[in-house]
């Protein structure tokens, strides 16, 4: 299974050289690399070995797995997934129960130190992590075990990258991202709620092709896909720059494609590939459909204020603080006023009248 090269796999499927070039061109684009790198990609793919891949799902909604299985260009993805050895996927696996567990343990043992670990969902840590268990074992334990033998970890989705929805206020299960638990292995964060399917595949393809991690930003996200903000590549940007904003959904401005800042778009602070790569085979993305960006690939986006209030508004109401300020001022003010009055009264009381007679002496 493992240890064949990618080219061996493709040749077995009767793929011609032209087809291989086509595959490499598509793969290069998928990885958000410039087209001039296609030949380098071809070189690398010819030598690449098939790694074993284990996918673990923790506190998640399965949206990330759904996203991946919906990726477009199935021919490309199916080739990639034929190429990798998806030895264990909690949701996709056909076996169940102890047979499934055995499959996982086997896979981990066989490829110890070399397999790629994919994780979706956040990890519960409160009370030892008992709020999320599989086969009687806490996710926390399973993660630590699986991570020990992994060559690298890919945290798929915002939950495993940053904590996601379970991590939002008040975080009853003590949910944390993978990077909070595992500190001694390289981790690639592929956030998004869910991530764009081809982004997931692109990152995997990169690892398959080059055997290394792509360049990551300071939040551990591949710069190729998360290097720019939605705002930077948004086709409605000229309207933002001119100050033309839609005031409500489907109003005149909205129908003319004006900027959705007033309707809560978080595009300026969100890094993702939605504006260029888009969703559903490049069909569209939220802003193009008239809805502001939720900021789903950023940490704490669930706690970052309403999705429908502009980016310039406060996250929490300030009325309480204003009230406290006024009340404290009233109290202090009265205190100061009284103090001043007593000083004035004192001064008056101790006032000594002086006449010129006194001074002449």
């Amino acid at each position, binding site marked *: 299974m493992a240890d064949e090269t990618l080219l061996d796999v493709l040749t077995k499927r009767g793929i011609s050289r032209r087809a291989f070039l086509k595959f490499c061109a598509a793969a290069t684009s998928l990885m958000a690399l410039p087209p001039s790198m296609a030949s380098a990609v071809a070189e690398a793919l010819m030598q690449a070995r098939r790694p074993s891949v284990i996918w673990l799902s923790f506190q998640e909604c399965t949206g990330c797995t759904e996203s991946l299985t919906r990726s477009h260009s199935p021919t490309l993805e199916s080739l990639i997934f034929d190429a990798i050895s998806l030895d264990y996927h909690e949701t996709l696996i056909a076996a169940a129960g102890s047979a499934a567990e055995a499959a996982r343990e086997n896979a981990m043992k066989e490829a110890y130190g070399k397999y790629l670990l994919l994780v979706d969902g956040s990890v519960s840590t409160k009370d030892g992590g008992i709020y999320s268990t599989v086969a009687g074992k806490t996710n926390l334990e399973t993660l630590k075990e699986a991570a020990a033998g992994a060559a690298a970890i890919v945290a798929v989705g915002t939950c495993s990258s940053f904590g996601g929805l379970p991590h939002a206020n008040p975080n009853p299960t003590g949910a944390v991202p993978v990077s909070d638990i595992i500190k001694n292995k390289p981790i690639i964060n592929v956030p998004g709620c869910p991530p764009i399917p081809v982004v997931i595949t692109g990152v995997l393809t990169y690892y398959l092709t080059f055997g290394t991690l792509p360049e990551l930003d*300071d*939040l551990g996200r591949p710069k190729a896909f998360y290097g720019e*903000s939605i*705002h*930077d590549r948004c086709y409605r940007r000229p309207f*933002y*720059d*001119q*100050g033309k*904003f839609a005031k409500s959904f489907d109003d005149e401005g909205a129908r003319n494609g004006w900027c959705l*800042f*007033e309707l809560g778009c978080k595009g*300026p*602070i969100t890094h993702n590939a939605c504006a260029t790569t888009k969703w559903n085979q490049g069909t569209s993305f939220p802003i193009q459909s008239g809805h502001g960006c939720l900021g789903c690939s*950023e*940490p*704490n986006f669930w*706690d*970052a*204020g309403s999705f429908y*209030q*502009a*980016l*310039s*508004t*406060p*996250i*929490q109401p*300030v*009325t*309480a*603080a*204003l009230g*406290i*300020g*006024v009340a*404290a*001022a*009233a109290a*202090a*003010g*009265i205190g*100061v*006023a009284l103090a*001043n*009055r007593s000083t*004035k009264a004192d001064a008056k009381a101790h006032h000594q009248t002086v006449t010129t007679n006194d001074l002449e002496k």
Partner: protein
Amino acid sequence: MDAMQLLLWARGPALGIAFAIFLFGMLLRLFEIYSLGRNKDLAPPRSHSPGSGWRTVVMRSFSAKSMLKASMLTYVTGYTFHIGFFVVLLFLLPHIELIRSITGLHWPALPTPFIDLIAVASIIALIVALISRVMNPVKRFLSGFGDYLAWAVTLLPLLTGYLAYHHLLLDYTRMLAMHILSVELLLVVIPFTKLTHMATLFIARWYNGDWFARKGVAS
């Protein structure tokens, strides 16, 4: 702290704290001024001119011709900066949204490129004012730490706002956080510096106008 955490703190608890301190400081100042009261005027008023105080509040915004000639630069930079600052604050859409979310009030915004121009003019006015202050020996002699602090905390929101809008210097998330934090800094510094003039100037003008009217020089 990463950029996002900083931004969420700036848009969250920091705003409450800044507003609270600002209100506390300003109201305290006003309490102090009003509680001290005024000296009783035992003399009968020379002229009967009610409302002189209020008229002075407005009329003092227009300078005497000779004053204007004598300190043209001060007047021009002063007016440019002050008018510009308020236009940027009150007519840029994101700011209107902020005010709407706190008070419920809103009004039409001006086109963003226009506001951008005004912001640049305000920044230039501030810089020219500083240069004038430093180069003039008398002004320099009279200037203390409070003056330079007030200048800096006033410049920062304008500058960071401009940088954020144009996506310069830092990654946008961090730049936006800096902008909001600079405003919060301004808010907490105002009550403890000469920037209290934003409220006290009206009190002072009224008092002077009223007093002068009693002395025979009504407005």
